[in-house]
């Protein structure tokens, strides 16, 4: 029952209530009092003993303590006091952090970012950290909760360039050899040969084979009907003369270039299942921030070391 625009049954003891919808709240206003604390969460509590949660969780949206500041977020900085956010990474057990991404901050909306990191080995645990910077000076490494750990895991082989990755799960095989510079001399008057190690060449070479077919994550299905077009897309990718990161499910990872033309396709066991094979030679250290930057895998040279 509604009288003069008010729900007469609106008391807590009413049998029913009239629902009203005020959605997408984006303004909170406090006035006419002294305020100690305000907390806002998207979790719904139905009982209350007066206690306010101290820890942030994924549902917390605002928690302001008004302790000499008016910050209500989970960090004590705003877009005005931060020029960028760095994403640093290290393998669990390693000491030094390496910077992989820098997110420029111009407004508070820029704090809401997402990045994909393709440069992780399978089966390894990685730790990530976010660090604010102001005019190039890094903030605190260990403020509250700025690190998190994850196990990287995937199947098959993955070939990566910056922001592009092709994944083969079916019919995958990889063989590896290590090339280094040696020549064997067989001089006159000597029964045994002499090995001469000139040069420092020492790199891996991979013979890779796999069927590249697009995987439809939503339906957990391979898209075989469009496999020819996708295979040609992969061929273009393989022959674009750019360095790539080659990763395998067993944890191997290398910075490579595709060598030994041609890229070949053998007859598969099915008209749509045609494997692609190619040879890749290691051209850099995939763990080195210098090599990742020089070969255009990362955009930030903050940790690049040019000392000799």
């Amino acid at each position, binding site marked *: 029952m509604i009288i003069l625009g008010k*729900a007469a049954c609106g008391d807590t003891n009413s049998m029913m209530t009239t629902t009203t919808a005020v959605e997408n*709240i984006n303004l909170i206003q406090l006035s006419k*009092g002294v305020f100690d604390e305000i907390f806002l969460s998207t979790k719904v509590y139905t009982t209350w003993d007066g206690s306010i949660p101290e820890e942030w969780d994924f549902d917390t949206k*605002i928690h302001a303590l008004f302790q000499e500041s008016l910050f*209500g977020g989970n*960090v004590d900085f*705003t877009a005005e006091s931060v020029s960028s956010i760095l994403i640093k990474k290290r393998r669990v057990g390693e*000491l030094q952090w390496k910077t992989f991404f820098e997110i420029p901050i111009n407004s508070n909306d820029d704090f809401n970012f997402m990045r994909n990191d393709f440069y992780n080995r399978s089966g390894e645990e990685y730790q990530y950290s976010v660090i604010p910077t102001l005019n190039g000076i890094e903030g605190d490494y260990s403020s509250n909760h700025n690190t998190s750990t994850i196990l990287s895991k995937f199947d098959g082989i993955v070939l990566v360039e910056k922001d592009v990755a092709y994944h083969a799960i079916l019919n995958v095989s990889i063989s590896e050899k290590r090339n280094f510079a040696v020549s064997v001399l067989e001089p006159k008057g000597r029964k045994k040969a002499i090995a001469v190690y000139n040069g420092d060449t020492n790199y891996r070479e991979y013979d890779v084979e796999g069927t590249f077919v697009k995987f439809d994550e939503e339906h957990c299905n391979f898209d075989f009907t469009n496999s020819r077009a996708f295979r040609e897309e992969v061929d273009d990718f393989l022959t674009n003369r750019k360095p790539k990161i080659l990763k395998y499910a067993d944890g191997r990872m290398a910075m490579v270039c595709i060598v030994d033309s041609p890229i070949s396709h053998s007859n598969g066991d099915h008209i749509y299942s045609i494997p692609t094979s190619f040879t890749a030679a290691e051209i850099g250290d995939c763990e080195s921030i210098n090599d990742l930057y020089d070969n255009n895998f990362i955009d930030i040279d903050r940790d690049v070391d040019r000392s000799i």
Partner: protein
Amino acid sequence: MNGVPVLYSSTRNSKDANLDFKITYTWNGNNPQQTGNIITIYNNETNEVAYTATQSNYYKLECIVPANTLINGVLYKVTVNVICGDEISAPSEALLFYCYTTPTFGFSNLTQDQLIQNDSYKVELAYSQPEGEELEDYYISLYSSDKSVIFTSSVRYNTDDLSLSVSGLENNTQYYLKAFGQTITGMQIETDFVLVSVRYLQPTIYSLIELSNNYHGGYTTIKSNIISLRAYVYQNDVEIEPTFINGELVDLRDPTQTLKFEDSFNIAKDFTLELKGCSFVQNSAPLILSNGKYNIYVYYRKGAFAGSEGKEKAYFEMKVVDELTYVGISNYIDIPADNELIGFMLSRRNNHYEIIAHNYKEVVENL
């Protein structure tokens, strides 16, 4: 006899005259074996012989200079002759070196067995040398508890600020730290090993970044959980500096002042809001939530009702106003003093609201 001894270039490094030190050389004489050597040290300024000694030495290509023979702060030059039986070689080419007192070099903010309660630590060093010899460069090494090197910093040449940060220290682990340095004249110095223990509060599961492994894509997704939000206080729509009480509460008793959180957050549907404060003005709305078009008000009210057994009580009333108006009231609480903390929880589930009041019975001092 052929062959003239050649002094090692390390001879140029400064020495501490208060300690024994060695002068080393190489010698490629054609005689099978040396039988001794002669060291002569001159004061470089006066060219007077400050020390000379003939030592028999069959094996080692070195001369020992005993402690307290020379004087610190003086520049010397040294030559060496090799003795082979009855023959004496020509003297080596002279090399200059300073004598300086060994500097004091150590950690100024670390003591043995110090507890570090963080995963990074800014190490500070102190250096002093009585004759004013300056430090050329320094670096530090971090060792595990079995003294194997984990990390060595780059060499620092800015010796005005003797500090550097060690980061990535693991929780519940012991480390040794040691610093190495070199003076301008090449004296090598180092600190003792300092044992430190690292123990800090482990971060909870909640983090500013959310990581997920993409099994079919072969990559890791990094998603930000950073919520950067700051309120502003306005007086007649002009931003002003807020007034804090005891550094813990914000004072908005002046009716012309309003605190606003706006932008950078959005509550689409369900929520819980908890608020704690005092000195609320009767029949005013200490809290207003808005989506720009419709508002939710929470009023502070007092009154004597049948539900409060006729006694005057305090309560909060919420009013949700869109095209219709929905009103709900909280439980009753004892009337608080002006400086007594009270609060309420307002929650919404599927557009059904609930409001609960609470009297903390805590008093704010200096209000």
